């Protein structure tokens, strides 16, 4: 209890409170311990200034040392004109701080039952403009950077998704009309029934294929054993052709080979017949459409609207529903922007670096190039991020029998990413990505924890366990996917339009370092 009192006193003293210094009782202390730490940065900027910074120890593929010199690095507030102004940034705020603490239950729902994790959580907002999920989705459909010339109507995103949605809906309507008189359950049972024949004939094709392979093997063996001349007159034919003496060869090896050629050809024609009858099974007509068409239509409809559960199904799941849901998010974001809503200002981050690496000159033709002298080459490289935010991201770490494990969700959004390879040039000579959204999810507490360890030989290892037969259903339902979207990508002044990678999931990952000889 004495220790508790000291702790209590120390806490009060830290807080600078002028109230009477009462010792905290055990219950009160219990409430204090385990609470996390909140922190935020205000009026912040970082500039490398006159300092030099260098990274060495890296090697190129030839094993030559490579040095990266950072000429300039900065972290400043949005609007710093790529670091030239000392614009102050805020990372978080009193009510939206970074938090570091031990969490369990609803705050880390994917952990194993009863588990606790150390969680670092970035500032999180739930309003549509600052929730990275919602704003990131809107920015992808918007394409252009909101606020720039020609990009002042936030409804553009809604119009763009409407085009996509209309296309999906007309596909759906076409399929619904096609099978309206049949009904989707009847369609499915018809497909199932006709598929039985397909399965039988597929099995037949498999059998015939294996017969062909075995007949081919026999033919090969017998060809090897066959004489160079049979019955004095008949020279050894090309593989697959017969000796001229046919079935009356006196030489038994030649006769056996000739028979194996016949057997092989017989098997080939049987396989062709089986394949033909399989194709016929796919062409079985019912309700005016072939099985192939019906199966394709049914799969497409399931993709658009979810698996049908009634004759005239509603469209309660699938891509149409998902796009409709996305559309309502876009409408909320667009409306907030139209009503004058603003986003919490992000960060401007940039580095300018030079790479110093050995370069070997070659001359002559590509096939017989002559190796020239090796000199040192210096390349310039710059990355600038404008309006960068990391709202709503988290990292959970805990320990289990396999060591240090974790899961992370990175929610990165940036108005602009500019990558340049030239020191004195304009953005027309650089790669510029606008409305960049990275939704990267790695690891899942129970199904696929991200594990970090160092092996006994001193090598670093990062791994994600693979999906197993036992957990595959839960795995594909629950392990979060990753998405990357870019509203517009422009390289060297050419617009390449929007780019998106959706629904990435790592099935298995094992990364290890290897120490190369120096």
């Amino acid at each position, binding site marked *: 209890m004495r220790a508790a009192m000291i702790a209590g006193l120390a806490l009060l003293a830290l807080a600078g409170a002028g109230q009477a210094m009462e010792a905290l009782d055990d219950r009160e202390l219990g409430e204090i311990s385990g609470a996390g*730490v909140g922190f935020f940065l205000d*009026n*912040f900027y970082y500039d490398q200034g006159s*300092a030099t910074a260098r990274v060495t120890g890296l090697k190129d593929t030839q094993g030559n040392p490579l040095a990266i010199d950072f000429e300039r690095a900065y972290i400043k507030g949005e609007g710093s004109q790529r670091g030239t102004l000392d614009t102050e940034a805020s990372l978080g705020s009193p009510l*939206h701080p970074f938090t570091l603490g031990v969490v369990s239950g609803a705050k880390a729902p994917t952990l194993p039952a009863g588990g606790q994790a150390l969680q670092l959580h970035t500032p999180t907002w739930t309003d549509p403009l600052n929730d990275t999920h919602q704003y990131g989705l809107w920015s992808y459909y918007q394409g252009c950077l909101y606020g720039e010339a020609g990009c002042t109507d936030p409804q553009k995103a809604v119009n763009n998704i409407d085009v996509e949605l209309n296309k999906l809906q007309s596909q759906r309507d076409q399929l619904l009309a096609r099978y309206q008189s049949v009904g989707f359950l009847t369609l499915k049972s018809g497909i199932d029934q006709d598929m039985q024949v397909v399965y039988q004939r597929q099995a037949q094709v498999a059998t015939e294929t294996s017969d062909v392979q075995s007949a081919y093997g026999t033919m090969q063996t017998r060809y090897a054993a066959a004489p160079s001349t049979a019955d004095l007159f008949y020279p050894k034919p090309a593989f697959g052709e017969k000796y001229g003496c046919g079935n009356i060869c006196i030489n038994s090896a030649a006769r056996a080979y000739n028979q194996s050629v016949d057997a092989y050809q017989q098997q080939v024609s049987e396989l062709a017949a089986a394949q033909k009858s399989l194709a016929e099974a796919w062409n079985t007509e019912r309700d005016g459409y072939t099985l192939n068409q019906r199966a394709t239509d049914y799969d497409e409809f399931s993709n658009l609207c979810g698996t049908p559960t009634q004759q005239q199904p509603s469209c309660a799941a699938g891509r149409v529903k998902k796009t409709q849901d996305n559309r309502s998010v876009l409408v909320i974001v667009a409306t907030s922007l139209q009503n004058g809503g603003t986003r919490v200002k992000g960060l401007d981050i940039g580095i300018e670096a030079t790479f110093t690496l050995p370069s070997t000159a070659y001359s002559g033709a590509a096939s017989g190039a002559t190796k020239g002298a090796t000199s040192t080459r210096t390349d310039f490289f710059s990355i600038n991020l404008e309006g960068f935010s990391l709202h709503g991201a988290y990292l959970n770490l805990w320990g289990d029998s396999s060591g240090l494990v974790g899961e992370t969700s990175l929610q990165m959004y940036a108005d602009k990413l500019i990558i340049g390879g030239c020191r004195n040039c304009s953005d027309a000579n650089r790669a510029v990505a606008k409305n960049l959204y990275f939704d990267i999810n790695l690891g899942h507490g129970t199904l696929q924890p991200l594990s970090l360890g*160092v092996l006994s*030989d001193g090598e670093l290892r990062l791994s994600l366990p693979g999906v197993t037969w036992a957990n595959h259903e839960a795995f594909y339902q629950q392990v979060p996917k990753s998405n990357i979207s870019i509203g517009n990508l422009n390289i060297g002044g050419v617009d390449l339009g929007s780019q998106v990678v959706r629904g990435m999931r790592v099935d298995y990952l094992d990364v290890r370092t290897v120490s190369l000889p120096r």
Partner: protein
Amino acid sequence: MTIAKALLPLFLLVGAALAQAELRPLDEGELQDVTGQDGISLSANLTFAPNPALTRCAGGCGARVAIKPGHSDGFIVVDNILGTFSFEGLKLDIVTIDSGFAGEGAQFNGQALRLELTEARFENARFTLGSSNQARGDQAGFRQTDLLTYSTNGEVRLHGNLYFFAAP
């Protein structure tokens, strides 16, 4: 026994009594005035010198920090930390946030520990990030994979206030 020796305990007693009279407990109002008024200003000059006895690195190795992730056989290391890191006037203070921050201050209405960042200087500072099979670098069978070495020299400009508080 001299008189002086006999009187010494008496003097001490009187002295103690006088001192006690001066130690008046501060009342609550005064305590509030005293506590955490101006905060603390910190200046530091941290130098890591190479240890020539460690011949693994050219010119001797600097400081080494080894972290062993649970159930791992090896260590993640920040090795060969060398050079000088210095800053002047880093201020530490307890402040009440009850206004500002776009209206969030009033809602927050609480106290926080504030760290006022300042310019920092590096003099030939460097470290190597790597992974190793041993915590120390001077034992038999030692193996290490260096990932990269970062070195810096000069003054960086760092500005801003870092606030810490107990999160709910």
